[in-house]
C-alpha cells in the first residue's frame, strides 16, 4: 500500500508542477436553523485537473513528500475514512470530507503562500503543501483538533522542480459549524477562525475580512423611493439594495459576493433546504469558458469551473458536479467506505442524463373559459 501511494504521490507531483497558478476557487459554509452544516466550493482552473472522486478507507498508510523529492516525511495511518475530489485521479485529496463529518479543501493562494523552510532533521514531521488536506481528513473529527495539531507538523514545499509553483491555503469546517482558514505566509503558520465560513484566493484571509468593510452599504432590502426636485424616483426593480455587489471573478469580489449571499439568505431548516441553499449560492460562481483568460503565457489559458462540491457534514453525503455535466451526483460517504476494498475511484465524468419528462404529459381537457389563476 505504502509503496503505491509513494509512486502515486511522485506522479502527482510531476503533474501538479505543470499547473499554472491562475486558477481560482470559491468556498462557503451554510448553517441551517436546526444546526446542520453544509460546505460548498468550486474548483476553477485553466489547466484541467482531470479530477475523479477518491474513496480512501480507514487504515490507509501515507508518508509525506519532502522538498528534496524523497517520500520520507511524516508517516501516518488514516484514522478516518474519506471521500473527496482528487487531482489527476491520484488518492491525494484536494477537497473532500471524512466519515467524522469534517470537510477540508485547498484553495489557490498565489503570490502569498510561503511554506516552512525544509529542515531534514524534522523530516519525520514534514509533509508537502499539497498533502495537507489528506492529512487533515485522515486524522481529525473537529476543527478544534486540527487547530491544535497543525502546529505540530511542518508543511514545506513539495519538490522544487515539480510543485514549486503550487501555492495553497486551506479551509476546514466541522459538523458543529466551526471553521478555520490555514495559511502559510513568509514561512509562518497562520490559523484564522472563520466565522463567515467563506474563503476564496489571494490576498490573505485577514485582508478579505477588512475589505468587507468597503461594502457596509450593501443591503438585501431595496431602497425606499426618494424625491429629487419634486420628481419621485425609485430603484430599478428588485435587487437595488445590492447595487455595487461585485460581479467579476477576482478573489476579493467572489469573497464579497459569497459573504453577501450566505449572510443575507433567509434561514433554512433541514437537510434538503440546507443542501439546496448551498447549491444555489455556489452556482453563482460558474465561469463560462472564455470569460476569464490568463494572457501571461504564449497562449491564453481559459479558467473554467471544473467542478463544484457540496458536503453535507451531518448526513455524510458528498455531492459534486462538473463543467461538462451540471447534474449533481451524490456519494453516501458511510456506504462508500463500508464497501471499499482499499482505495476506490469513482469517475467524475459521465454522460449528461437529463430526465426525459415527455412521457409524464397528462391530459388537461378543453381550454377553460377563464385561463388565468384565480
Amino acid at each position: 500500500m505504502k509503496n503505491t501511494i509513494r509512486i502515486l504521490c511522485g506522479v502527482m507531483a510531476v503533474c501538479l508542477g505543470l499547473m499554472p497558478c491562475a486558477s481560482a476557487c470559491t468556498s462557503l459554509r451554510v448553517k441551517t436553523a436546526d444546526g446542520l452544516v453544509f460546505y460548498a466550493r468550486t474548483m476553477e482552473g485553466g489547466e484541467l485537473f482531470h479530477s475523479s472522486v477518491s474513496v480512501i478507507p480507514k487504515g490507509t498508510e501515507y508518508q509525506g513528500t519532502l522538498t528534496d523529492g524523497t517520500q520520507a516525511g511524516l508517516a501516518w495511518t488514516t484514522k478516518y475514512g474519506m471521500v473527496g475530489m482528487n487531482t489527476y485521479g491520484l488518492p491525494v485529496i484536494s477537497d473532500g470530507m471524512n466519515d467524522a463529518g469534517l470537510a477540508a479543501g485547498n484553495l489557490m493562494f498565489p503570490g502569498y503562500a510561503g511554506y516552512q523552510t525544509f529542515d531534514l532533521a524534522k523530516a519525520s514531521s514534514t509533509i508537502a503543501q499539497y498533502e495537507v488536506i489528506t492529512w487533515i481528513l485522515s486524522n481529525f473529527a473537529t476543527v478544534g483538533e486540527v487547530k491544535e495539531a497543525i502546529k505540530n507538523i511542518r508543511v514545506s514545499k513539495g519538490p522544487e522542480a515539480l510543485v514549486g509553483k503550487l501555492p495553497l491555503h486551506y479551509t476546514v469546517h466541522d459538523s458543529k459549524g466551526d471553521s478555520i482558514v490555514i495559511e502559510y505566509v513568509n514561512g509562518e503558520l497562520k490559523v484564522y477562525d472563520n466565522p463567515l465560513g467563506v474563503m476564496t484566493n489571494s490576498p490573505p484571509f485577514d485582508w478579505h475580512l477588512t475589505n468587507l468593510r468597503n461594502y457596509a452599504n450593501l443591503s438585501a432590502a431595496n431602497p425606499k423611493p426618494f424625491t429629487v426636485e419634486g420628481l419621485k424616483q425609485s430603484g430599478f426593480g428588485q435587487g437595488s439594495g445590492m447595487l455595487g455587489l461585485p460581479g467579476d471573478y477576482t478573489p476579493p469580489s467572489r469573497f464579497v459576493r459569497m459573504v453577501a449571499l450566505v449572510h443575507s439568505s433567509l434561514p433554512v431548516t433541514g437537510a434538503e433546504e440546507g443542501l439546496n441553499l448551498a447549491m444555489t449560492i455556489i452556482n453563482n460562481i460558474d465561469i463560462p469558458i472564455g470569460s476569464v483568460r490568463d494572457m501571461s503565457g504564449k497562449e491564453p489559458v481559459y479558467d473554467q469551473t471544473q467542478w463544484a462540491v457540496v458536503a453535507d457534514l451531518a448526513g455524510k453525503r458528498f455531492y459534486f458536479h462538473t463543467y461538462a455535466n451540471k447534474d449533481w451526483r451524490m456519494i453516501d460517504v458511510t456506504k462508500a467506505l463500508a464497501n471499499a476494498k482499499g482505495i476506490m475511484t469513482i469517475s467524475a465524468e459521465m454522460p449528461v442524463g437529463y430526465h426525459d419528462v415527455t412521457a409524464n404529459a397528462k391530459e388537461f381537457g378543453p381550454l377553460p373559459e377563464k385561463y388565468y389563476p384565480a
Partner: protein
Amino acid sequence: MNHLMRLICGIMVLFVGFMPCSSACTFVDVEAKDGSVVIGRSIEWGFPMEYTFVVVPKGQSFSASFPKEKVAKDFKPLTWVSQYAYAGVGVTVQQGLDSAQNEAGLNIEGLNLPGFTEFQTVTPEDKSVLALSDLGDWIMGNFATVQEVREALPKCTVWTPEVSAQGSATIHLAITDRTGAGIVVEYVKGKLNIHDNVTHTMTNSPPYDWHLTNLRNYMTLNPKDMISSERDGYTLKELSTGDGMTGLPGDFKSASRFVKVSLLRFFAAPVDTAEEAYSLAGHIINTVDIPKGSVNSGDYEGQSMLETAQITLIKDLKSNKIFVSDYAHRLNYLLIDLNKLFAQNKKIGPVLFSSFISQPHVDITDSIK
C-alpha cells in the same frame, strides 16, 4: 510650540476624546522634471475646526513629554535644539503639528488612521521617549531627509496619552523630502511600521499595505479608451471618452479615495515646472473635494457631521512655499512664502488661519480689451 499653542492644544485635547474619529484626509505628492517636489493635501472634518499656523526658527529648545509612571527613576527626557526652521499647521483638536515642512525640504502630513493605530507602550528600559504631540517638532527640527527619519524613528518609543475611554489620537504620517523620497509611518498594535510610499499617496484606514494590495483590484483601469469591440457582426462602441477608467471608485471612503488619487497620479502626464506641479497636485486633490452634504458621518450633539475639506494645502518643498485655501474659498489659493518668514529668524504664531484666509476674487473685467 509656544505657550498659546500649548494652551489651545491643552484645551482642545480634552475635546478630542469626545470626537468620533470621522476625519478624512487625502495626500499626494507630485514631482516635476525641474526637480520640484509638491505636496497636495486636504484635511477633512465633519465638525467645525480651527486651524493654526506656526513658524519655528532654528535654535529652539525642546523637551519631549513622557509618562512619569512608566519610565525608569533616572529617566531623562529627550531634548533637542531645532537645527532647521520650519512652519506647520495644527488642528486645534490635536496636539502637535498635523502638517509641517522645514527649510531643508522635509515634510510631514498626519492623517487619521482610526481603528488600527496603537502607539507604543513605554517601559523602564526606554531611553528615547516621544509623545505623539512632540513628533512633528522632533522630525522637523532634527532631520533633512526621509532616510534620516527612517534611521532615527525606530530608536524612539512613541506614546500618546489616553484622552478618554474612546481612545487617543490615531494618526499615521506621510513623510516626504525634497528629493521626492517618501515613507508612510504607522503604529499598529504597538509596533512601528515604515512603508515606502511607492504610490506617493495616502488616505485613511486601513493601513497603507492594505491599500497597496487593494490597488491590484483595479489593474484593468486604463486611461486609454476602448473604441469598439466587435463580435458576431455586432459592434459595441464607446459611449464617450473616459471609458477606460470605468470602475474608478467615486465615493469618499478612504479605500476609494486611495485608489482614485493613486491612479490619477499614476496616469498623470509628466509635468515640467513647479507651477505645473502645483496645478497637478491641486487637480488631483480637487477630485476628492466633498460638496458639503454628501458625506454625513452621523450626529454629534444634535448636529449632523457634514464632512468637507476644511483646509487644502499645496506645498513646494524646494522653494518652501505653502498655498492654502479653506472650504469657503476653494476657488483660489493664498501663497505663504516660507523663506521670507524663515529669514526673520523668529517664532511666529500660532495664528488662526481664519484670521487671514480671505481670498477676494481677482477682478479681471478691466483687462478684457
